[in-house]
């Protein structure tokens, strides 16, 4: 990404860049040369300090995960353990159940992100492109969900899920499918809101041409409109993946064991419990290993796809 302040950034993609002009006279640039050098040095210093403040805690967590417990207690600051204790990871994975947490999280997210995107764009498309009585009402109903905090609905939601589980056990508490549907429902507000504005901007000419060619409404959606909405889908998809991966309140509330069976915990929920349990057992290195394993996969995916993630998430706010 270009960092020259004068070039229009990729944010304005689509517009042709203004024709290059001959640069202004050098002397006209304000400030003295020494002042500029000082400013440059100051910028680097401050930016580097902040970078260290961001990275150092993360490195510290990762390195602490490779220490023995006594090293964590006696030499908390050192970043270089004597021998690397990979066993901490194995212990957190099995005894700390991080492995199970991962499996549950992946199972739930695979279903929930796919369904959120599918159902969210279907609803948004219909609301954005078709006139029918009640259109506004449904749109505002979705929109209102953006302002309502989850914990407001906690107990009625649990009761609803519990009662559902009495008749349909696979939709009761502690069931993957139930959590998938709950995630979808709670992600719909933002997904519909965002995709609605996206579908509105798509040109009508292509849709009309497809209709003239005899495409049905649903075929028009799946083979014409959805592919055209790809940039929006990617952006909001990344947003939903991160949002649902981060979700801790809903699983803590709903993935409870009702009949004494083991809980199907997802990663955020499990990590909270791990932090309490390992605290009691003073298994600090195990806790650090757990945090590291919850942290590194996302960080690595982010570093690989950093441009897409950054633009995807900032677009979610910018629109």
């Amino acid at each position, binding site marked *: *990404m270009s*960092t020259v*302040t*004068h070039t*229009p950034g*990729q*944010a*304005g993609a689509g517009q042709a860049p203004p024709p290059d002009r001959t*640069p*202004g006279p050098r002397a*006209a*640039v*304000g400030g003295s040369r020494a002042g500029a050098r000082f400013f*440059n040095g*100051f*910028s680097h210093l*401050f*930016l580097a300090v902040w*970078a260290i*403040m*961001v990275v150092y*805690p*993360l490195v*510290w967590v990762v390195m602490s995960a490779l220490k023995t417990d006594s090293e*964590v207690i006696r030499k908390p*600051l050192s970043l270089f353990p004597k021998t690397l204790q990979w066993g901490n990871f194995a212990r957190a994975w099995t005894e700390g159940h991080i492995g199970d947490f991962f499996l549950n999280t992946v199972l739930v997210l695979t279903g929930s992100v796919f369904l959120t995107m599918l*159902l969210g764009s*279907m609803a948004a498309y*219909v609301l954005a492109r078709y006139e*029918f009585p009640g259109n506004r009402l*449904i749109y505002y*109903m979705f929109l209102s*969900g953006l302002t309502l*905090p989850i914990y*407001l*609905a*906690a*107990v*009625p939601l649990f009761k*609803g899920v519990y009662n559902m589980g009495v008749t349909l056990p696979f939709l009761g508490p502690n069931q993957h499918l139930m959590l998938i*549907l*709950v995630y*979808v429902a709670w992600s*719909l507000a933002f997904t519909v809101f965002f995709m609605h504005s996206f579908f509105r901007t798509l040109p009508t000419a292509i849709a009309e041409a497809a209709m003239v060619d005899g495409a*049905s409404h649903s075929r028009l959606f799946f083979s014409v409109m959805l592919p055209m909405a790809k940039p929006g889908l990617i952006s909001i998809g990344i947003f939903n993946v991160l949002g649902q991966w981060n979700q*801790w*309140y809903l699983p803590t509330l709903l993935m409870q064991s009702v009949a004494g069976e083991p809980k199907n915990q997802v*990663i955020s*929920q499990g990590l*909270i419990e791990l*932090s309490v349990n390992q605290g009691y057992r003073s298994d600090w290195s195990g806790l650090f290993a757990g945090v590291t394993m*919850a*942290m590194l996969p*996302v960080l690595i995916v*982010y570093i690989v796809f*950093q441009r897409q993630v*950054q633009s995807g*998430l*900032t677009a979610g706010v*910018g629109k």
Partner: protein
Amino acid sequence: MRHGVARFVTGFLALPVGLYLFYVVWPFLQAAGYSLTDWGGYSDRQQFVGLENYFRLFTDELIRKAFWHNVFFLVTVPLFTIALALFLAFLLNVGGREDKAGIRGVFGSGLYKVIFFFPQVLSLVVIAVMWQQIYRADGQGLINGVLMKIGLVDENDPITFMYDPEPFLGVPAVLWWLLVIAVWSGAGFYMVLFSAAMQSIPKDIYEAAILDGAGRLHTFFRITLPLLRDTVSVAWVYLGFIALDMFALVYIMTPSQGGPNHASEIFASVINFNAFQKGQFGYACAIAVALAIFTILLAALQLRITRRERIEY
């Protein structure tokens, strides 16, 4: 044809609307209903008490505390995050050397951007558990450990962080420490946002200003900042929501989820406390409904204040 459209619309809407009604709308409506009763949450016994719960809100000491703590976060989280993010974006984009092409961004700004964004992709739970260890109230914690090593903190009198209810500038210290985490995790994201906005400002404007003899600071304060107004106000609204939702940090990090001695209560933790620890579910719902109304009013207010004519370029 008309008939086909109706069938298509219903078919596409049925599932999303159904799910949304059952898992989102219905629980909210129920909560609103329970707020008019004295239901405890576990028994089947409940009595209609009218608006009694709502009147009780105004005399509840905890609510008053939580309200001011929410206001504190509502002001400080956006303020500090945006100020820091703008400053970082400014350094990143204007801090470089000057040459023929004008003032450049600093060397390595791409790398800085990648790094600053890290906290955004970490989950709030990971951040909370990590900071729990950083904020430990003994030498094993990262901050206390470092400060003890360089002799700034006495080993027998460490900084107590989450256990410190003593007011600083009239606000319990524990809230300030929570604020640090919020700013730490948010600044990078908004820096990237502002940075992108800065780069989409056309260069002609800067060329004109530089020809007129404006320096870095002048161009920043007179041109960049005013043109960023839209982005900043959007960021403010978003950070406002995040500030209302500091619950994860309070829940995971503070003693007894809002402690010590209720020093870090916010609306959400008071709801949690009343519903699950005191077993006063009807009352908890009343707080929740009041909070929802507060949120909606606030959102409307913010949108109104920040609305302004857009500058197109």
